């Protein structure tokens, strides 16, 4: 019995750690989706920020400056997405996937240039952990992720600004007829998403572990898209959805018994993604204007 409880505790702790980047990205993604822009580029935003954070931390030998560089990289990259999709009305799926692929190539080449090998960087300083009651030593990003998700929920559903953003996401033309600047809100949505994805990406390289690794995000940006749907495009839903995926992902770290092959356990998060996409999606209605250009 004690052993089981121990295992459960370990699973939860591990789930919280692995779910943190998903919660951050999905919470950002829900704001982006609510403003009517598909959050297709999250994988790329995270990856670029992840590299930026490692590079910054390595160059300045300071994790906090690394985080700052990571945010700058990620937000700049999301700004590029906003310019292409909002100002130039590019197809958001194609643009997002293109930017994700570019991010992979770019960060891999940069790793080669900076550290001489494309596989991984040298070790870099990491963010200090904090002590919390009950859970003990934990990354500062964990409470930050929860806090940001709650704040964004309040913004979206409790403020007039949030109402405006949701109207833009539902029907941009209707928003324009009541005098709402649709482009402003779409930019804001994408940039908030970029900021949160930057935190998520930086968490991976200068907190979760202490180096950047090629393709570090490994599809988390795409998983965040499905967490986003599962959470009904609501930042609070992103917390719940993120935890579900965290648990799925942590099984392989915790359940080490030989009875279940590790490969099967590694499959779990992707299987959950598939299940979400095939079954949950039909019960969740996306913002009606998502993915459409306004004019």
């Amino acid at each position, binding site marked *: 019995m004690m052993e089981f409880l121990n295992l459960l505790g370990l699973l939860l702790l591990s789930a919280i750690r692995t779910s943190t980047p998903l919660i951050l990205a999905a919470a950002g993604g829900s704001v982006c989706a609510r403003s009517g822009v598909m959050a297709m580029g999250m994988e790329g935003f995270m990856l670029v920020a992840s590299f930026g954070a490692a590079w910054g931390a390595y160059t300045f030998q300071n994790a906090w400056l690394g985080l700052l560089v990571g945010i700058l990289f990620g937000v700049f990259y999301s700004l590029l997405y906003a310019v292409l999709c909002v100002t130039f009305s590019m197809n958001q799926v194609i643009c997002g996937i293109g930017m994700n692929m570019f991010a992979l190539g770019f960060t891999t080449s940069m790793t080669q240039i900076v550290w001489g090998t494309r596989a991984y960087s040298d070790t870099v300083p990491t963010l200090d952990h904090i002590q919390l009651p009950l859970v003990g030593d934990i990354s500062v990003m964990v409470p930050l992720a929860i806090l940001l998700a709650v704040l964004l929920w309040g913004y979206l559903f*409790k403020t007039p600004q949030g109402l405006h953003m*949701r109207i833009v996401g539902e029907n941009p*033309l209707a928003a*324009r*007829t*009541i*005098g709402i600047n649709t482009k402003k809100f779409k930019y804001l949505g994408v940039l908030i998403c970029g900021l949160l994805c930057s935190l998520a990406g930086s968490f991976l390289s200068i907190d979760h572990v202490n180096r950047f690794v090629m393709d570090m995000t490994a599809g988390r940006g795409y998983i965040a898209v499905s967490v986003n749907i599962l959470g009904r495009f609501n930042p609070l839903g992103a917390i719940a959805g993120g935890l579900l995926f965290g648990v799925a992902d942590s099984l392989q770290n915790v359940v080490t018994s030989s009875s279940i092959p590790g490969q099967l356990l590694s499959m779990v998060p992707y299987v959950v993604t598939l299940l979400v996409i095939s079954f949950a999606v039909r019960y969740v209605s996306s913002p*009606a204007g998502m993915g459409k250009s306004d004019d």
Partner: protein
Amino acid sequence: MNTIEMRGITKRFGSLTALDHVDFTLQKGEIHALLGENGAGKTTIMNVLYGLLQPDEGEILVNGRPVRFRDSLDAIKENIGMVSQHFMLIPVLSVTENVVAGSEPRRGLFFDFAKAAQQVEKLARDNGFSLDVRARAGDLSVGELQRVEILKVLYKNAQVLIFDEPTAVLTPQEVDELFLTFRRLRDEGKSIVLITHKLGEVMQIADRVTVLRDGHLIGSVEKKDTSIRELVKMMVGREVSLGARHRSDLSGKVKCSIRDLSYTRGGLPVLSDINIDIREGEIYGIAGIEGNGQTELLEVLTGLLKPDSMTLTLDGRQVTGAAVDFIRSGIGHVPEDRLQRGLVRNMTVAENIILGYEDKEDFSRSGLLRQAAIQAAGTRLVDDYNIKTPDCNTPVSSLSGGNQQKVIIARVFSEEPDFVVCAQPTRGIDIAASEYIHEVMFRYRDQGKAILLVSADLDEIKTMSDRIGVLYKGRIVDEDLADNFDDDRLGCRMAGVDYVPESEGDDDGKI
């Protein structure tokens, strides 16, 4: 002083001049109809007034003061409000949120929903609307949605209210209620602009009428000094014979018989127990508010949708199979949405004219298209059906709506099907083209063919049909000779209400 004065407004879209030095004035406390055909520039000039479009030339004065609108926010600040033809409501939000959006009451940083709901409730009560202000907009009926739109404009304290074709989606009873609201608002000193192409409405409600044609101002007249005949002449630019028609005597034998048609989707009945017989030389009209099963009925009758049960016979022969079998058995289809189902935009007029008939002997042989024959057919039909196009190799997308519709009409009717399913044949096209299409339909009927007409335009149903069936929630709830229907009876049956004639005995007791 005029509440609104627009002087010499010109608006160009590329090489097209949508408005050419148009003047428009609006006085306090009047209902002003803006009349014109589709594409005359009515909506364009109102979009300019509401700040959604910026004019290339001209100026706007509000209460004598020149103003410049960069966007609709500027217009809202001048107390101008607009109810668009397509409702600008967010179905997932509550009535309250929809009404106050853009000028929400706040408490600190937050949106004060309780206060907003209170304000909207009061506003609705003051205007005599009964509405649940906490309901989701998506759950409301069309008439209620329109009331929400009106509240939305009034909440922003509009003194000038622009309505773009507000009656297009309403039942006759709802139209009456809307006009009552108009009169009340006018008596409160507000000014109303009614964009419309329906002359009956203009004569019923307007104080003054401004007519536009092809982006030009034709003139402004007082309602009391004009007549329908004069307005039509102003609108079209020539005399038009209105409502000249003769009914079929319904003496032919049954051409097309629809028996026991039922269709359910996701467990819900969409069409139930529909039985219709259409005779030779008859136009049978389906009246009904959109969304009561019309689309499904059309798709079933053209083989695009497989019903749960139906026996469809044409001249005694049973018709089954896929859409292509329906076409081959002699059922022509003029689809509801010409750009979605009727035409391939980027293909030429000639190619569109053979669409669906391309594997006929005339147009292809041993798997190859016979270009010369297609060209010849295209050229002949462009000529026969008065399609205005440089030649039949022009892409159909560069034609006007009316001419695009004529391409479809030419295709369907030239194949001489026994039975034509004709949906919205004149939606969104100019009077001249619709007049022509109606003529083609009448001529075809008089050759002894059968036509099923589905249209959202009640006037069209009444003018064209020999018999009318009213479709409500997937059932034919009433069926009679067209001449036995008046607006009251149609409206009641379309809304699913029992109809009680005001004077007894003048009805044949069918209901």
